[in-house]
């Protein structure tokens, strides 16, 4: 595995993530498999500081829903995408609620920065603060 690419300013929470099935209330880091139900964590979001979500295959897409559900439930800690991920997916990941990525092949931070600036506008609300174009149009 390459290095973690983080978009958070706070220090990395390095506790090992325990699998969901072994998670004990009060634990601060947990590991979700792609098919795990993120909603099971909702009662524990106050204690959690990092949630890792697995992307075992490029085609895997459930993690995007998991992250969004966690953000919608108010989680403000780190959500880390781990697995087969490329820089070209960064916009999807960050808008869905991820703020850290641990990819199999390293992400070049310069390319990442460029990629994240690529699309000046978005069409739909997500978990970030970016206003969708319908809101911008409404304001105009």
């Amino acid at each position, binding site marked *: 595995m390459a290095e973690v690419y983080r978009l958070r300013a706070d220090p990395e929470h390095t506790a090992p993530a325990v699998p969901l099935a072994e998670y004990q209330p009060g634990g601060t880091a947990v590991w979700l498999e792609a098919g795990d139900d993120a909603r099971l964590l909702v009662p524990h979001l106050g204690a959690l500081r990092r949630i890792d979500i697995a992307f075992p295959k*490029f*085609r*895997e*897409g*459930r993690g*995007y*829903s*998991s992250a*969004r559900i966690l953000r*919608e439930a108010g989680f403000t800690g780190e959500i880390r995408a781990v697995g087969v991920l*490329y820089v*070209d997916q960064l*916009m*999807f*990941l*960050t*808008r*869905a609620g991820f703020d850290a990525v641990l990819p199999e092949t390293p992400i070049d931070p310069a390319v990442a920065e460029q*990629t994240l600036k*690529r*699309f*000046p*506008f*978005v*069409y*739909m*609300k*997500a978990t970030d603060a970016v206003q*969708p*174009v*319908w*809101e*911008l*149009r*409404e304001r105009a």
Partner: protein
Amino acid sequence: MYRYDEYDQAVVDARVAEFRDQVERRLKNEISEEAFKPLRLMNGLYLQLHAYMLRVAIPYGTVDSRQMRMLAHIARRYDRGYGHFTTRQNIQYNWMKLEEMPDLLADLASVEMHAFQTSGNCIRNISSDQFAAAAADEIADPRPYAELLRQWSTLHPEFSFLPRKFKIAVTGSTIDRAAIKLHDIGLELVQNEAGEIGLKVLVGGGMGRTPMLGHVIREYLPVADYLSYMEAILRVYNRHGRRDNIYKARIKILVNDLGPAEFARQVEEEWALVKPLGLDPPPSELARIAAHFAPPVLDANAPVEIDLSNPDFANWVAVNTHPHKAPGYTIVTISLKAPGEIPGDASADQMDIIADLAQRYAGDEIRVTHAQNLVLPHVRRADLFDLWQVLVSAGLATANLDRASDIISCPGLDYCTLANARSIPIAQKLAVKLAPQEADLGELKIKVSGCINGCGHHHAGHIGILGVDRKGEENYQLLLGGSGAEDATLAKILGPGFDENGIVTAVEKVIDRYKTLRADPAERFLDTYRRVGAEPFKEAVYG
């Protein structure tokens, strides 16, 4: 017609720049073909048997003359002078060069077009009724609702890696020309008792390997809840759709496994959670979009009566035009099915001519139909004769809409890597054989696919033909009794398959038997089949 504003244009331009960058990295070998493949697929670029194929999105099948001329330009400049209109109202180019793609996409962007999400496991091009805003039978133009979906689904952060591709169709009429029961989500505009427009929501239809008809999960969805409800459906599918087997990954399998009622319950439960998040745009956004689709100013005094003394012209008018909302106007379908030609193909010159005609006679609009034909939606009846004469000289006046030679065909083994058999030559042979008697046969929809994926809609054919591989030989199965319209049914296999000549003979036998069985000359093949069942046809073919 919808016009991009600065936001829409900026997003499409950014996409072109992104792909230019990705292609450059690929050509310099900075990324492998394996890593590049999903990126090019997100931009509609497939690798076929002989070359790259590009699929360009035609949202809800609507283009104007300027865009049609650009499609012609692309055919000339980047392809071999042709384009292929598809059953999903898109256009495909079959002979693409990777290094030219960025320039091509920039050309498209200059006329507000793109190839976003025409491939991959994402929400694909939204299709709609080709007679939108013109048909006498619609309650409202479905295209603003489709455009709202197009925008919402473009680069969606949660739904760009679905278990499988996702197709949505929207219609504004009870006469279903958009095959809404055969889509992952089908939407029909309906009115409630107060006369307000809402959406009837169907989920779980689809063709391919396991054809199924969609189920209604909501009789009336208020427009104010439209996008949040779509989010809920997609989220349930994204989380619970099967990912272990691509043949079982479409939403139809999930809906079928859970049962439509349980699926609907899960959607409602999810929707209760996402509704308060404020995902739905205010009504002003739909109104803004709808204003773009204001119909052209029509001449209230346009004459209804026209001179039909030329029999070829009269025949074409009878077969290829439909009633328009406004008296004195009509809807023209231009057939891309001249018998012997490749179904859905148009040359660059033909595209230019159609663009001219649209500008001169049809409110500057052209529609692509899911039967691979083109439509001029708003034509004065008084202009029909002039228009027809131009079509005749361009080889575009074939009068065969919905008849035996108006055959849908997928590209098949002539182009497609997944094919088991050729489909275009079968369609060509059948069209040539059947054209002489098609007037007598009336409505007859024949659809040909080159493999079980069913891109040629064979399951929705009154007569469907499916190419399969039989011990290394091309073999064709015959299916009867399908329909993709409001009376949707799935066609059933009649019996053992045939070789290339055998399938043509078998179809002829079916048709001969129909002629002896029909209750009266007006009874369609499909209705005769539904009345008498498969047996008499089995006997005619195999007996």
